[in-house]
């Protein structure tokens, strides 16, 4: 047997100087040959640590082996046994913290590029004329409502419809996908890919109702008269701000608004599309997570001469994925670490023109285990800005918690859920994703959806709560 290459097959990417001028995807995907070579690096470990590292327990060695053998039709079938949304997961999952983190090959060099292979096999299927549908079990006569058409709701719907239940997704926006379409930018996850995956879920027999606002048009209590079980995956709610003087000046956005304008409403194509967005020249994005990286890279593509990340801790503490930080650095994003905004100053039209900041230093570790940033007194300085994006998180969506009787709500406005079953305090109602946990990742929402789906199925069969 040939000696294994310790390096992953690299994935071709758009060059930074080109890609900051467009919204097209950054990585270009593997060719068939590249995928086979990469798949052959897998050791097919007996104990399968990678599967345990996956929140939705994909049979990773199984689908990778089939790619290595060039049997792509069976590889995608294997994948879809456990994951209905591989084109999405292959792009946005933090594999480096999950399956690839525990990959045995990774101990000797690079781990197997599981995420890239997942993406490859999903994209391969999309190019085929006929997409093979999995077996759908005989109708059970049970009806399930999924409230919210984001990653959690789509997962629950995809799982339950295969088991023969009748499933309807209710989505408040005019498009399905939740954060996948309003939040994650085109250059990281093209909307056409989300559409493709949604179309697949639809083709399995899931009914889809868009522009349907649950909590207003119908309450969960009303749904329980019509459906045998309800899954709530309503995701993000009110964005957090910092309560700083001048924070409502024009030009200051929440990340949710900035990204929704650009992604969902396609403001980056204004005036072809009607929704506007300010194309700042000096853009400061506050925060150190993936949403902050998405925002700052969007700002660059909207024409910012200077796009900055303002983060109160240091690079080491940033919660964003390494790949996102790396891409942002390559594209010329400026990182202002140990910097805390304390006020905004406006021009005579009410538009933000300066952000006043304090320098910070790292002190003792705090509750999160990260060193607590402490302001340096008298270190005030001002940064010229014309657009600011506040990307420090959000509370769960308030609509369902506020309109459902007998639902236990946590301190942060989240729905209290038993994480092992997805059950809420109300019989017949399950929940998962950001509405239960607060802001987290797409894959954790899908993992929660997977757990909820299994327990909804049990509940529908046994009627035991």
């Amino acid at each position, binding site marked *: 047997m040939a000696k294994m290459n310790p390096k992953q097959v690299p994935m071709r990417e758009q060059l930074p100087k080109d890609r900051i001028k467009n919204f097209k995807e950054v990585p270009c995907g593997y060719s068939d040959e590249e995928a086979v070579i990469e798949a052959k690096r897998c050791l097919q470990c007996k104990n399968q640590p990678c599967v345990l590292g996956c929140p939705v327990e994909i049979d990773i060695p199984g689908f990778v082996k089939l790619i290595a053998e060039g049997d792509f039709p069976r590889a995608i079938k294997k994948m879809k046994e456990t994951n209905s949304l591989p084109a999405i997961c292959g792009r946005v999952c933090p594999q480096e913290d999950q399956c690839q983190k525990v990959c045995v090959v990774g101990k000797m060099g690079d781990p197997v590029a599981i995420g890239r292979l997942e993406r490859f096999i999903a994209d391969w299927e999309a190019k085929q004329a006929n997409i093979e549908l999995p077996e759908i079990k005989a109708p059970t006569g049970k009806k399930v409502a999924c409230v919210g058409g984001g990653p959690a709701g789509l997962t629950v719907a995809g799982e339950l419809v295969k088991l023969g239940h009748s499933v309807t997704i209710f989505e408040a926006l005019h498009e399905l996908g939740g954060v996948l379409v309003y939040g994650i930018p085109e250059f990281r996850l093209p909307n056409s890919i989300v559409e493709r995956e949604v179309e697949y879920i639809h083709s399995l027999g899931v009914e889809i109702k868009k*522009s349907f606002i649950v909590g207003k048009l119908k309450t969960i209590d009303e749904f329980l008269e019509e459906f045998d079980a309800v899954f709530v995956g309503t995701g993000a709610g009110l964005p957090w701000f910092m309560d700083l003087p001048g924070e409502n000046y024009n030009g200051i956005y929440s990340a949710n608004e900035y990204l929704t304008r650009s992604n969902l409403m396609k403001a980056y194509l204004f*005036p072809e599309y009607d*929704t*506007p967005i300010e194309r700042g020249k000096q853009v400061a994005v506050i925060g150190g997570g993936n949403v902050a990286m998405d925002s700052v890279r969007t700002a660059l593509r909207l024409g910012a001469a200077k796009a900055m990340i303002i983060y109160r801790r240091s690079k080491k503490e940033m919660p964003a994925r390494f790949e996102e930080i790396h891409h942002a650095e390559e594209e010329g994003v400026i990182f202002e670490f140990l910097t805390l905004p304390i006020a905004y100053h406006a021009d005579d039209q009410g538009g933000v023109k300066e952000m006043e900041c304090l320098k910070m230093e790292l002190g003792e570790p705090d509750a999160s285990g990260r060193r607590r940033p402490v302001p340096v007194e008298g270190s005030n300085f001002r940064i010229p800005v014309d657009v600011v994006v506040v990307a420090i998180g959000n509370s769960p969506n308030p609509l369902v918690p506020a309109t459902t009787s007998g639902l236990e709500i946590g301190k942060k406005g989240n729905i209290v859920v038993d994480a092992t079953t997805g059950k809420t305090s109300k019989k017949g109602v399950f929940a998962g994703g950001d509405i239960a946990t607060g802001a987290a990742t797409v894959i954790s929402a899908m993992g929660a959806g997977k757990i909820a789906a299994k327990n909804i199925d049990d509940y529908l069969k046994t009627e035991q709560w």
Partner: protein
Amino acid sequence: MKILEKERIAENLTKFVINAELIAEKALPGQFIILMGWKKGERIPLTIVDADKEKKTITIIFQEVGYTTKLLGKMNAGDSLYSLVGPLGEPTPIKNYGKVIILGGGVGIAELLPVVRAYKEAGCVITSILGGRTSDLVILQDQIKEFSEELFITTDDGSLGEKGLVTDPLKQLLEKNSDYGLVFCVGPVPMMRAVSNVTRPFKIKTLVCLNSIMIDGTGMCGGCRVTVGNKTKFTCVDGPDFDGHEVDFEELMVRQKRFITHEKQSKCKLNKYVKDE
């Protein structure tokens, strides 16, 4: 989402009756919808002016001021909206406040209608003051009158009622007798600010209905934020009605102009569209 009826009720004011069974069933006074006229369109919030459960319809009235509303005004009965979601926002609190003064300006008068009707049903004794630039723009007088004990009309040019602003009769009424339980006002921001300033010294509870710029309208984007009592509130989920004595109107006026330069660009597009037509 089909437009069943269209009526031009005044210069630049258009009424649509839209087929929307579930919204019609649930809508309460003061709530709004968000619609997109076409696929590449904006999402814009509009107050539900009427909801007919039997006919399964809702009515909206909009002023053709900018690109989107002007293009919307070109849609006709039989056309379908690209998307329509609602009812959104907290309903206007309805109870018997005793004597109530209702003020409406421009398209705001349309938004008053469901609220006036509900106040009347709750037993309020209503005085209405309607205002507009000129007589044609003082719409729905007869409908408002139906629910009102007294009706005052003011116009900027004196073409109908008294020449002046809605705050003139308001001041006169309050100076005569200030035992009103509520003042409710919908109209342009400067009008709502002026009304709130008039009622403040009389310590009369004053509600204003805000029309902030929104996208999702479900408490996700934070675009509609407004300062009320020194705290940031979100018009879509905390409002749209707020205590007029607490609203930072200056900030609101600035925020309403957020995309004024974009609006100019869109107007060029509209001119081109009209020429092509």
